[in-house]
């Protein structure tokens, strides 16, 4: 019996040792590689414009479901999770904005689960998701980091303007943007029809050349103006926020993806055929498209881009200059 007890205890120690020995600790190789790849895009992204924006300025927190791995350059440290939920977002930590993103492994698993629940399909059709669960690759994760880092840059730069915009129409952080958009913009058939028309004109402008391009843009902008007249202030403010802040982040994200995957994959994921869907996704797409139009028409627009005039103001300015 004594021998049995010794053997039993030894088995326990051996199993505990094997468990500890085979476990993987720290940030995975995949996530390190993703971060390294994201940083390697700095030069390409600098050419894009927004010269003051650099991913290297922001710490990236990879959340693995239990804790955050905070990466800054070559340094990686393990810290308590600041949010403890899966989210791609920016968060203020000790006075600075940091990028929060799930680890690639967790994000992929989450995507699989959301895919099984139909959420990805819904997100794809609404435009809030550019990837299916099958196509969400490591490079897509890199692009997502750039998207969130751009939000960190926007928040640093425009927080006062964003607060003022929301305050002007009595919106607070608790107000759900999806609810506002669905209730006040999507439920208005005239506004929805104008949005669709505007998007069609913008797409034609993107394909068009010279004067024709300018005409389409100006027509689209006049439709945007009509929309603003018929929508309540809160919907206008939320649309402006989504189109300019989320749209420009989508623009940055798409360029990061293009840089890694090339034009064909970029077109497939970001330039698909537009169809009107309820919710905020369509503004991401419209904002990105306006950014791309500015690339075609107004070189160096990124340096002048401000929340005072937004994409529409910048496009109008470019067309009038010409």
């Amino acid at each position, binding site marked *: *019996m004594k021998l049995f007890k010794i053997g039993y205890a030894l088995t326990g120690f051996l199993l505990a040792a094997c468990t500890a020995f085979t476990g993987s600790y720290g940030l995975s190789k995949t996530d390190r590689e993703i971060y390294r790849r994201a940083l390697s895009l700095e030069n390409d992204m600098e050419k894009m414009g927004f010269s003051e924006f650099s991913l290297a300025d922001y710490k990236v927190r990879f959340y693995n479901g239990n804790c955050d791995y905070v990466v800054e350059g070559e340094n990686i440290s393990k810290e308590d999770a600041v949010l403890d*939920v899966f989210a791609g977002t920016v968060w203020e930590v000790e006075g600075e904005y940091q990028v929060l993103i799930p680890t690639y492994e*967790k994000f992929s698993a989450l995507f699989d689960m959301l895919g099984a629940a139909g959420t990805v399909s819904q997100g794809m059709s609404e435009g809030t998701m550019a990837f299916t669960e099958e196509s969400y690759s490591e490079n897509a994760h890199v692009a997502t980091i750039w998207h969130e880092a751009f939000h960190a840059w926007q928040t640093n730069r425009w927080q006062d303007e964003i607060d003022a915009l929301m305050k002007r129409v009595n919106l607070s952080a608790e107000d759900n943007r999806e609810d506002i958009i669905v209730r006040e913009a999507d439920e208005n058939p005239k506004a929805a029809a104008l949005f669709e028309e505007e998007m069609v004109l913008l797409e034609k402008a993107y394909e068009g050349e010279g004067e024709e391009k300018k005409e389409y843009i100006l027509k689209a902008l006049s439709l945007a103006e009509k929309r603003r007249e018929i929508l309540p202030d809160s919907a206008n403010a939320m649309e402006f926020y989504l189109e300019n802040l989320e749209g420009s982040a989508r623009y940055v994200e798409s360029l990061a993806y293009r840089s890694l995957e090339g034009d064909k994959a970029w077109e497939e994921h970001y330039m698909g055929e537009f169809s009107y869907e309820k919710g905020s996704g369509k503004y991401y797409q419209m904002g990105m498209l306006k950014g791309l139009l500015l690339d075609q028409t107004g070189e160096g627009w990124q340096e002048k881009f401000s929340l005072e005039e937004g994409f529409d103001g910048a496009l109008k300015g470019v067309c009038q200059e010409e």
Partner: protein
Amino acid sequence: MKSSVGIIMKTALKERMRRKELYIIVILAILLLLLCSSDVTSITMNGEAVTGFSNMFLLMHTLVHFVGCVLAVVLSLGTIPKEYERKNSHLVWVRNISQEAYHGGLTLANVCASLSAAAILYLALGVYAVTKGHGEVLLRMIPAFLILSLSISFVSLFVSVMSIKLPVMAAGILGVIVMVFGVFHGMIGLFKNMLGGLGGKCMSFFLFLVPDLSGIQNAACHFATGEKMEAHLIFVLLFSLWVVSLGLFIFRKKEA
């Protein structure tokens, strides 16, 4: 001690094999497997049919694991308390057999009965693979079953050990909770991260305590289909089995 455990186990196993629940669930599960594998029934995800051998095999492997774990709860729950109710325990004490040996024997019988039922289901899965022209997985399914059996053994062992100390109902509820958290470990882990707050914290705590049985199921399935698998999960589960088995030495029945 060894021989007494063996005799107790053998007797108890014979009795488990006579239980009708075992056959009803196995027959129902095999019917379900056959139904899933037939071309008549199509399983859909996001409105799209799940087709192809690898997808179907994964789906059916998950099903076999789940049913195996349910059977482990059903077959293990209440068997030890019943022995005491029927005063069978007295027949053992008069032979000077220790409680540890007695409980150990009964628990081993529970584990063996659960694994036998799971083996029948796994065999049905093997038949499915062959009928679909993937006989090559058969050989790999043998070690894969050994991996899967760790998960089923854990559920059976846990329920058996808990039933020594807790009333049958409480042991059953706890067993089902542990089984659900284990079998859906990955999914619940993602859900708690989306949930956050106190609910998320409670889930985190349970997930920390319960080994990842879904990971073991995946590892077994990956092994069967020749993909890479993670050894760490297997060691975690072996260690968990060791920890739970300590209950056989710690927990004692008062009625004895």
